């Protein structure tokens, strides 16, 4: 059976963008810092709109920030 997994590189992009803090990113995309923490820990799957806003803040595409892997068991 397939087991889809969503990875993200938000932390790496934050550091690459003048070491942006979690609070700064949260303010710019319109969520709380706890949501950014949950995103980076892989404990929360963002909505499509939020994923696009995050990618736009870093100036990259959604696929650069979020990777969807479909593993076959």
């Amino acid at each position, binding site marked *: *059976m*397939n*087991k*889809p*997994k*969503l990875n993200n590189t938000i932390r790496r992009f934050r550091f690459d963008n003048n070491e942006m803090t979690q609070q700064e990113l949260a303010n710019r*995309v*319109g*969520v*709380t810092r*706890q*949501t950014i923490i*949950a995103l980076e*820990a*892989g*404990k*929360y*799957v*963002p*909505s499509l*709109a*939020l994923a696009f806003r995050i990618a736009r803040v870093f100036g990259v595409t959604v696929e650069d920030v979020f990777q969807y892997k479909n593993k076959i068991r």
Partner: protein
Amino acid sequence: MNRHEKIAWFNLAMFGLSVIVYFILFAFLSPKFPLKISLMVSSSAFSLCALMAFAPFLFRKNGTIIDEREVEETLFFFPDLDERDLTIQRKARFHGFGFFWGIYVLMLMGTWMWLRYFNPYGAAKYSVNITVDIDLLPLLVVGGFLIIILAHSISTIIQYRTEKNSDQLKEDRMSSSRSFVVFCLMFFTVLLVINSLLMTKAGFAAGALMLMMSSGIIQFIIWMMYKNPGRNFDKGDLLILKIAGWIVSIIFLVSYMTACIGTWVMYRDYSAGAVIIVPISLLSFGALIMFFTVFPFMKMYRRSGTDE
């Protein structure tokens, strides 16, 4: 700690305080007053739960709005909900009302079954009216409200505290899983057994009627799971569902025929009107259930095979 988690803890604390005050009051009152009066007066302790209404104001966050684009379901005193908080609150609300409905139905049906068929103070026949104290009605409303708030609070805390790693993408809609299927089948098997017991206690016509209705509901649920299988369903799971569907369909048909015959036997000594009207009503009701539940599912099972 998240603000909403604080509100959830506050609600649980108020309920816990109410329970403690209830037992203290009862301990003081019960030696002096009759049991019923002591219980009624002690239950006034639950008025402390009204303090839950002040929780959003106590933990208010200066009215700052995180992002107006996300303010779709915010109330005027919840300005800091982002999409994750909204998702959690939505799920908590679902859990609250779902739990309330399950408990509420079980309470009402259980009370009815107990008083009607297993009344320890004497056998209740159909001609005996059992009345409910009208003062119970507001208590039901208050009790239901408390159940919703408690389930909502517990769900909020659990979701914030124990978020598991999202190894698997979670969908908003509820999808079946193997454990859910097993739980449903076990739960409704118990329901069928209880209905069978009713057959011996209240006469086989009434029990057969209840068996017919419950098997119709079970058949509907099996159909829903068959049409919307979970991600981890395989052919074996679908085969189990198919077999269960056939068994439940047979139970339905047998109980339907039994209910019709039993009702005719019960009413044959009454007026001609009763002999005609009651079986016809039963026939129509059963035919309706069959038309919308059993026959379409049997047709689908035959057509689909095990390659779904």
